[in-house]
């Protein structure tokens, strides 16, 4: 069960020690030494950044490796392993000038040859790379044109190129270590980062040690090696056990489960940070190709029949806010007018719309049409807050004579069923960094293969989404995203229910933690009191 929840985080993607609120900087003198203990529900598949498919490995690679460039705390690109970079006029040839004072943890030199070898390994079909292989885009070839100059030629322009290069899985690995270690590289990776790999005790913990030679830190953190001696990632599948371990002082930082937030806040022992999740935490989505939700009046009626605040208060214990559209306020592109624009709880309207669609109360008070009762199955995943929310929605709809059954599936199974479109309606949630997420949820090219679980083929929506991806003027893009949000609400593809607030608790002795807008903790400046 715990593992099912771990997988649910494919979508929930609640990165473990993620916060968007900068932690306060302390002015006391940092002390070196000590051990910082983090925790993960999921164990990494491998620590080879080019072979991994788990989110937690991506997170660890931020500490073990460096990328050619990175992002500062405002999200702008800044130099990391590359001092500078430029692109040819046609957007095909990228040139990177590399630092000359870097070396890998195994002592091997970092230079243009190393970068070339690392990228070529990520692209090689032999590597069978789940994610790293597609980060670099349509690469034609990689050349070392000098000791510290690399060019990457693309077959066609690739807009996400620079952004992808900041992904931790695009880090440069030591090709000497890859050669020496072979298949063992994934259990003893070698990079250039502020921490180096020390030990991996299966299903228990992963230990990284401070890299004393680290003098090539990017400008977001202090120059020089990190302060703490070790970073330990504990692997604990059960969230109740994580909380107990945190309270016992065995963990330094913990993403709190909703059930423990109020209690731990009440102890006044820990610093607790909170931020609104970047995504919609829970929405009900309709499959528009299936009865009864092929009728837009029925979809709209349901959206007027659900009183979202009760769902939030009971389902999520009030730890978040009511959602209105496909984007949350925490993602750029969110249109503030959506709160007013979205359908509100209105029993009168709901009943009228249902009657208009031909659904009338039968002798038992339940709605029926042509002798068939209004009943459907809601597909959902085994996540506590979702299950509780489903029960509230179930009882709210029952008051209108609609019978909703709740069917829970393990996450992988659920996704496959939703892609196949066998559901009438489902519960879903997402976390994402940009408004481009609407392409994944609503563009008809994603029906059957991607996330278009509403199975809605709509050329108007498709062209709006395509326009949002082409437009480079930010003001115009905002207007397009506003139109998309309104249109999705008009079509009632979703009933957005709530977006949760994430809570991070930190032990009082942890100082100097910095958080990155991409959702991870920078550990270079952390020290322990």
């Amino acid at each position, binding site marked *: 069960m715990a593992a099912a929840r771990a997988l649910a985080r494919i979508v929930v993607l609640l990165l473990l020690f993620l916060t968007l609120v900068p932690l306060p900087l302390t002015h006391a003198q940092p002390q070196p030494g000590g051990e910082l203990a983090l925790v993960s529900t999921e164990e990494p598949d491998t620590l080879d950044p080019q072979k991994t498919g788990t989110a937690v490995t991506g997170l660890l690679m931020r500490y073990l490796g460096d990328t050619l460039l990175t992002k500062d705390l405002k999200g702008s690109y800044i130099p990391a392993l590359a001092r500078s970079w430029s692109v040819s006029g046609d957007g095909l040839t990228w040139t990177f000038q590399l630092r000359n004072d870097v070396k890998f943890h195994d002592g091997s030199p970092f230079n243009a040859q190393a970068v070339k070898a690392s990228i070529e390994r990520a692209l090689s079909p032999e590597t069978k790379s789940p994610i790293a292989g*597609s980060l670099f885009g349509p690469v034609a070839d990689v050349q070392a044109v000098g000791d510290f100059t690399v060019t990457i030629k693309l077959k066609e322009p690739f807009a996400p190129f620079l952004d992808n290069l900041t992904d931790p899985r695009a880090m440069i690995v030591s090709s000497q270590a890859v050669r020496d270690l072979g298949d063992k590289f994934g259990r003893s990776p070698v990079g250039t980062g502020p921490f180096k790999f020390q030990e991996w005790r299966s299903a228990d913990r992963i230990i990284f040690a401070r890299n004393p030679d680290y003098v090539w830190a990017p400008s977001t953190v202090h120059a020089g090696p990190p302060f703490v001696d070790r970073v330990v990632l504990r692997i604990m599948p059960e969230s109740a056990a994580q909380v107990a371990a945190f309270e016992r002082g065995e963990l330094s930082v913990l993403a709190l489960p909703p059930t423990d937030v109020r209690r731990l806040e009440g102890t006044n022992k820990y610093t607790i940070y909170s931020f609104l999740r970047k995504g919609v935490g829970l929405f009900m989505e309709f499959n528009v190709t299936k009865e009864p939700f092929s009728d837009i009046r029925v979809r709209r009626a349901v959206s007027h029949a659900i009183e979202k605040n009760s769902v939030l208060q009971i389902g999520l214990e009030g730890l978040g806010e009511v959602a209105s559209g496909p984007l949350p306020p925490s993602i750029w592109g969110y249109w503030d007018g959506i709160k007013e624009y979205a359908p509100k709880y209105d029993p009168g309207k709901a009943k009228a719309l249902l009657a208009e669609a031909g659904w009338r109360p039968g002798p038992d008070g339940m709605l029926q049409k042509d002798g068939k009762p209004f009943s459907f199955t809601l597909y959902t995943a085994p996540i506590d807050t979702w299950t509780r929310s489903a029960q509230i929605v179930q009882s709210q709809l029952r008051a209108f004579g609609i019978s909703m059954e709740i069917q829970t599936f393990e996450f*992988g199974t659920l996704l496959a069923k939703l892609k196949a479109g066998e559901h009438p309606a489902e519960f879903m949630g997402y976390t994402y960094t940009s408004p481009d997420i609407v392409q994944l949820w609503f563009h008809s090219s994603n029906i059957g293969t991607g996330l278009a679980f509403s199975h809605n083929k709509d050329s108007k929506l498709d062209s709006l989404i395509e326009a949002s991806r082409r437009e480079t003027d930010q003001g115009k893009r905002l207007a397009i995203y506003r139109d998309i949000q309104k249109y999705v609400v008009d079509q009632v593809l979703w009933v957005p229910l709530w977006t949760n607030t994430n809570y991070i608790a930190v032990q009082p002795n942890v100082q100097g933690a910095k958080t990155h807008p991409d959702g991870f903790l920078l550990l270079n400046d952390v020290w322990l009191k």
Partner: protein
Amino acid sequence: MRAFLTRRLLLLVPTLLGVTLATFLMLHLTPGDPVTIMLGEFASASDVARLRAELGLDRPILVQYLKFLGRAVRGDLGSSIRSRRPVQEEIAERLPPTMLLALAAQVLAVCAGITAGVTAAAARRPSVDSAIVAVTLVGLSMPTFWSGLLLILLFSLTLGWLPITASGGLRALILPAVTLAAPAAAVLARVTRASVLEVLRQDYVRTARAKGVSERLVVYRHALRNALIPVLTVAALQFAGLVAGAVIVESVFSRPGLGRLAVTAILSRDFPLAQGIVLVVASMYVFLNVGVDLVYGVLDPRIRYQ
């Protein structure tokens, strides 16, 4: 005896073949595949297709099964899709902690269960018997994920006597072993009690009592040995059950082990790994059964195998 053993061991072949086929079909008939789970929901269709081809998952199921079988016969269980490591290596690493946990739980369960069962059966006062029966009912009904967390809250967090996780060596084994042993001990107590009561009604026990043997000797010397046969069967099958029960206990106590590995393998549709684990556990089950049959003969000299 030798013929019996040969026959039983030969039966292993069709059993394991059936087990692999059943697991293979079940895993492949479950919706969802390793690549979409690995790449996450934001992956493009072309990336999914590329990785499926690179991992050989685009080939027909029968071909994949035969390839698996061909390798398995030669002692090669393939590589995990998720971690890319050899399946044997993954299992070899996780089997010892699970066996240690299951063995500790088994010893606890047998000691506690048989003692409680005999005490209840031989109790002169009905209140003692009822009390023991009531306690076993609680032990049986408490789900391990709940009792495990209660033990953590009491002994680790409140009293601070024992560590929460696997890092504390043998001391860290106490809570998980107790959690895992509780339901097993309850079952053994009930089986022992019923079995001893049954034997106590037999003629030879009456004879023993008639010739003046003390009640203590009657119960522990004469009755218990015969009463142990069904208890032994249950205990042996329980051992395999304890390995399965370790799934939950290992998660609650963050212990490394085969149970957690199996859950991860199934949830990520890591076919080779899941297949390998099932194969190992199934073989264990079969060998245990043969072992139990042999021990019968020791306990009851009338039982002979041809």
